[in-house]
């Protein structure tokens, strides 16, 4: 998520900007700004930061029944040497890449379509948005029911259409289960990406297309040379947000598979949950959580740095 902070001026001119308000002689304004943002940060400090500190603190301890001992970074070093963590990391990465790629692959064409049509635009937009409105827990239960090996609609339909030879146990075989939870997530997740891209498409000036049409550009070329550059920044925003949300997602997998079978769908948030609430190891669980947080921070920083608008020729203001 890129948050341009200087109203579109290149980052390097920030000091000048500061001088400019000084120039206006409104020194107290500076403090007024802090006053406006203070409630938000006070809120985040109390509601998020304090529990986070507590979680980090917990991650320095290991418990064996009632005895709790301080292990320093012991939980972290143990983590790096342990199979479940690396397995979960692998699952998380594959899951996120697959899900986000599919969100974009489905969301982008739909956004293009919705942007182009005139008739039925609102209705279509709303219809495609509906999966996003379903609570993850409810969506997950719905998919469990649809994918039921004996009584589910999916097996029946695919079998009737001759697409599968026999009823599949969708959530029972590791690879199938993995793709099933990806599918369920894609179903619920693509509308968000679609929505953001649609928002971006609506800001591309019509004249650019008209001008290029006059120059005889084919639709594909228009897409390549007008649409994509405009969408570049928004694609970056959408995918970053989407990666963050997908990696943190817990509800759907927890309901659909609880991480099984044989840990095939045990993404990191589910690993945290299972470590804490099944194995009763709260310290190690917290350590996994902190590592996950760090991974997300690093990922977002690198990703945004690579894609920030300042590095490309386009200006998005």
């Amino acid at each position, binding site marked *: 998520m890129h948050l341009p902070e200087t109203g579109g001026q290149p980052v390097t001119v920030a000091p000048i900007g500061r001088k400019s308000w000084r120039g206006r002689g409104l020194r107290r304004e500076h403090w007024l700004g802090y006053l406006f943002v203070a409630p938000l940060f006070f809120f985040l400090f109390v509601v998020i930061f*304090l529990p986070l500190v507590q979680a980090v603190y917990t991650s320095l301890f290991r418990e064996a029944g009632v005895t709790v001992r301080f292990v320093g970074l012991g939980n972290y070093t143990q983590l790096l040497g342990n199979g479940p963590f690396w397995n979960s990391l692998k699952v998380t990465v594959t899951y996120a890449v697959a899900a986000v790629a599919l969100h974009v692959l489905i969301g982008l064409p739909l956004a293009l379509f919705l942007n182009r049509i005139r008739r039925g635009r609102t209705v279509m937009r709303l219809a495609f948005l509906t999966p996003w409105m379903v609570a993850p827990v409810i969506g997950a239960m719905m998919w469990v029911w649809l994918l039921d090996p004996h009584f589910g609609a999916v097996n029946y339909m695919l079998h009737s259409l001759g697409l599968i030879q026999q009823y599949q146990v969708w*959530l029972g075989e590791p690879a199938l289960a993995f793709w099933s939870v990806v599918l369920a997530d894609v179903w619920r997740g693509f509308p968000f990406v679609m929505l953001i891209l649609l928002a971006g498409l609506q800001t591309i000036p019509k004249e650019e297309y008209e001008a290029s049409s006059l120059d005889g550009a084919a639709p594909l070329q228009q897409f390549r040379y007008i649409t994509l550059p405009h969408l570049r920044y928004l694609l970056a925003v959408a995918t970053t947000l989407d990666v963050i949300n997908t990696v943190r997602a817990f509800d759907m997998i927890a309901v659909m598979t609880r991480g099984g079978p044989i840990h095939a769908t045990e993404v990191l948030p589910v690993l945290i949950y299972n470590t804490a609430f099944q194995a*009763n190891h709260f310290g190690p669980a917290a350590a996994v959580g902190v590592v996950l947080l760090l991974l997300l921070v690093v990922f977002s920083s690198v990703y945004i740095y690579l894609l920030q608008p300042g590095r490309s020729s386009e200006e998005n203001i």
Partner: protein
Amino acid sequence: MPSFLTKEVTRRSVLGGLLGLAASPLLLQACMTPSANPSASKTPSPALKTAPAAGPVTLKWQTANLTEAQYEPIWKEMVAKFQVQNPTITIEPILVARKDHWTKFVTAAKANQAPDVVSVDISTGVYNGYLLPFDDLWAAEPESYRKAWTEDALVAGRYKGKLYGLPSWGGIYAEFYNKDLVQKAGLDIAKPPATWDEYLNWAKRLTTQDRWATTILGGPTDTTTRVLLSWIWSNGGDIFNPDMTATTFASNAKTLEAIKYYLDLELVHKVTAPGSVNINYLEQTVLFAQEKIATMRNAYWAVAKVAGDNPAIKQKIAVAFPPMHGNNRATMVSVTCDSISKDCKNPEAAWKWIKFVNDREWSIKRAKIANWLPLRTDLIDDPEVKQDPLLAQFLEYGKVAKAYPLNHPLWADIAATDVVSTVQAALLKRGSVEELFGKLDETLAKKFKEM
């Protein structure tokens, strides 16, 4: 944002950030001390010398099954009656789906707000310091009352010699058959299979195009382990060494033989419904109720469950003792205890409620309506219980039933995760049974060492 990371980090901002970080634990402390102190002193005290509560008392009560249809009418009536008898005590039931029961309990316990009366795995609960022993309250009861529970029954509520749970109700495991399907396969329900060999013969004949003899349980809850264990016990095997310091899944020949026999029903003979890796109690009973499988290993409570799913099935149920191998007549009784949590401020009131829940009237009601068998032994000869032939049959099996869960502090974890993963790996052919269960023994040995 990245530019913040690269360019804007001035010494001042770093210093400020560090200061903020350093100050926050202090603030945290400040926010949290007021109630942190009493919590520190609230470690379970063995002596309960609290004076009887004078004022009104509220007892939070959490068990895994309050949301279940077969129990709901009974416990609502129970709460209402108790509150009339004890106007100063209010019962506050905590409704939670079974799969979230432990999460919810632990979260509350971690904040020293555990519900007062709970039903959780005793060993795991005590090991983590969540339960209060109540030997004093028990000892204060008259001999005539205590007699209702035999010492054998009480073992399930004890941990290291102290009493933490009153065994309340249980499920005795047997083999269920669908009489219709048995008949259609040309078999005689009057002579159900008594041995593994006979069972396998039946199973082969009961399997058709879209129906199966039975199902392996391989889903992510401890019912997977229960059924596996009941097969192991029917071969005279065991999964712990005598002093419970190591598991013997692979090293005990009888255990391994039973595991192989059971899993081979699917792996070799293919007489089980597909999808076993997702199947637990819920899915198994649905398959049985919808007549997709002809037999299942389950406890008495499954009668109410399958009848709830499909009322027509009730007439078709027949029950027999689980087939055995060699001369190992054994089955399982899954025990649920009522306990007082470490955060309970009025153990006397809690004990009063536990006693009430387990008195004659409600125990019999639970048995007859919800199909949960009372664990107080003085009810077995009760005419109301004896009248019911099916109930009597289960109680007869109960005489050779071993108690579940096993008395090990990590049991709840092992049963719901490690064993399940191993069963799943075996079903998915990720290795031979010997190999996988050998690895399970090793994993658990490591886990025990960390304790």
